[in-house]
């Protein structure tokens, strides 16, 4: 087996925060990095780009070591491109000059650099913007030009830091399909930081979940999102997750509650998670009696409309189980009206054991 193309071990110590991660990527692979705010995603990208010097670790790109103890290849000699949330186009340059900037910086003659820039502007559907300055472009147009600019110097590794987060709902889909076409289909090795399960599914081969400066899970995107092992991943994937220890017919939470479910590849006594979709949760105003389901009291924290359904977000009731915090239940708008739901109410969430999968936490 050959070594992975990118291998990174990164250690950054801050007064209130430590980033300590190790991961790899193959040439041409897109790896999504997801995690809650403050998990260290942007710090990680900064280190990979060479804009931050880590306290320790080693980063290898192909056969080049770019970061090691006592070694720091500066950003402009790394061949690592960056596309951030804000387009950050140079305001004094036209779209064409912005895109040609990278090749020019690498010593490509002006005519050739501009030819490459025109080619890329056409690829991002921005050929007609060539002579415009950023101030006269929409946010979506700016971001498309910024993608062209990031690709222009042919980076060995492209860092995408929530490239869709600042775009409005009309511009995001176009940008997403561009990224799919120009990054994933072109086998551009890339690291994509995102908050969105859809972005990860559409754009990434693999996903790495970062929480509190550590990688809590990683694997092929589909697998990770279908079988989340951490609360954050479950939330991104739109699933409910309850951690605990596997029993013969379910799982026992830290506070001793039993959650019934089907065991899937986990041995009794092992750390496990019980996972079920919010649509499988039934909601009652009174505790349902004689029902063969998992029933737990919750306080209604928020009511979020989501297309055809309404998502109810739970928080813990005083004296009740704490792990219900953040669980979601999808109900119909009619049910919201029938139950007279308002935030702060105490409700009962019920889930059938058959809908609950219990599998290993690691």
């Amino acid at each position, binding site marked *: 087996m050959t070594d992975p193309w990118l291998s990174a071990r990164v250690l950054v110590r801050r007064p209130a925060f430590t980033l300590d991660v190790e991961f790899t990527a193959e040439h041409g692979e897109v790896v999504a990095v997801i995690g809650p705010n403050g998990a260290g995603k942007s710090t990680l990208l900064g280190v990979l780009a060479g804009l931050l010097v880590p306290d320790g670790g080693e980063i290898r790109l192909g056969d080049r070591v770019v970061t090691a103890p006592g070694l720091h290849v500066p950003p*402009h000699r790394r061949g690592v491109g960056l596309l951030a949330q804000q387009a*950050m186009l140079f305001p004094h340059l036209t779209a064409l000059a912005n895109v040609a900037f990278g090749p020019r910086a690498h010593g490509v003659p002006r005519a050739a650099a501009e030819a490459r820039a025109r080619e890329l502007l056409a690829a991002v559907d921005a050929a007609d*913007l060539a002579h415009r300055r950023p101030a006269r472009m929409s946010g979506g147009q700016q971001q498309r030009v910024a993608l062209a600019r990031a690709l222009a110097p042919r980076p060995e590794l492209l860092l995408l830091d929530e490239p869709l987060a600042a775009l409005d709902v009309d511009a995001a889909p176009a940008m997403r399909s561009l990224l799919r076409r120009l990054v994933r289909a072109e086998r551009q090795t890339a690291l994509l930081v995102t908050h969105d399960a859809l972005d990860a599914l559409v754009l990434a081969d693999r996903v790495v979940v970062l929480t509190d400066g550590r990688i809590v899970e990683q694997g092929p995107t589909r697998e990770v999102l279908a079988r989340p092992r951490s609360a954050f991943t479950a939330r991104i994937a739109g699933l409910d997750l309850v951690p605990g220890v596997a029993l013969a017919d379910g799982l026992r939470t830290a506070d001793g509650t039993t959650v019934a479910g089907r065991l899937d590849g986990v041995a009794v006594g092992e750390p496990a998670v019980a996972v079920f979709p919010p649509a499988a949760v039934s909601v009652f105003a009174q505790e349902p009696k004689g029902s063969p389901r998992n029933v737990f009291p919750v306080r209604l924290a928020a009511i979020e409309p989501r297309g055809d359904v309404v998502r109810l977000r739970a928080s813990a009731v005083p004296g009740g189980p704490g792990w219900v915090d953040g669980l979601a239940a999808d109900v119909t708008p009619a049910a919201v009206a029938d139950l007279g739901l308002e935030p702060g109410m105490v409700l009962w969430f019920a889930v059938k054991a058959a809908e609950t999968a219990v599998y290993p936490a690691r």
Partner: protein
Amino acid sequence: MTTDRPAPRVRRSDDHARGVALPGLLWVPAAAAFALIALPVVGLVLRADWARLPDLLLSESALTALRLSLETAAISTVLCILLGGPLAAVLARGRKRWLRWIRPLVLLPLVLPPVVGGLALLLLLGRMGLLGRVLDTWFGITVPFTTAAVVLAQTFVALPFLVVSLEGALRTAGDRYEAVAATLGASPWLAFRRVTVPLVLPGLASGTVLAFARCMGEFGATIAFAGSLEGVTRTLPLLVYLERETDTDAAIALSLLIVVVAVLVIAIARPRGADGLR
């Protein structure tokens, strides 16, 4: 085909802008402040002997002083850009901890009486001074009471104007564009030239104008360090001061000339905010 026309500006006329009302009380001190600035100039205009004005302004001593003032102020302004520009960049971007002790010192010429600055320059570069003795004995160079001394005095007092406004522009621009340039393969020097400098051009322009104006008006440091030798160190402000004693009309005429030059400077290169690019 698209052309690079500027975006149409939204015009705010008096008729439209009716947002939050300005407290009426502010008008009184505001008017007083403006009067304090404008009335003395009006006084100059009223008091001037307009019939003799052409003769007074075209006198040889006036023309010599004007030429000397323009030349020295131009050279000093260039020096301010060449020295102050990099200083501003270092202060705005440098990460060294001791830089924060340097910053307040840069403001010193701004708060010191210029005559004290001139005295300090004299003590440093005078024939008995720390550096002056070396220059004199090793190279035979004497700085005080030469045109070079005028330039040094002007640069000394004007430098903070350029450094402060440029540093402000650099901080406002931030280093994120430079980071982007680096990820695109630009060396720090290339990023500085192609990204940083164009971004802060409006700040540099307004700093340059301020510095030039300050050089033109320099008096205290010049008279202390360079003296008042006609054609060598007697700039316009020094001539005004000299004539004030003997020929008030001449002093007024020269003052008007300085006012005109100052108004021209403001009109030609009005200091614009950092929004000039957008």
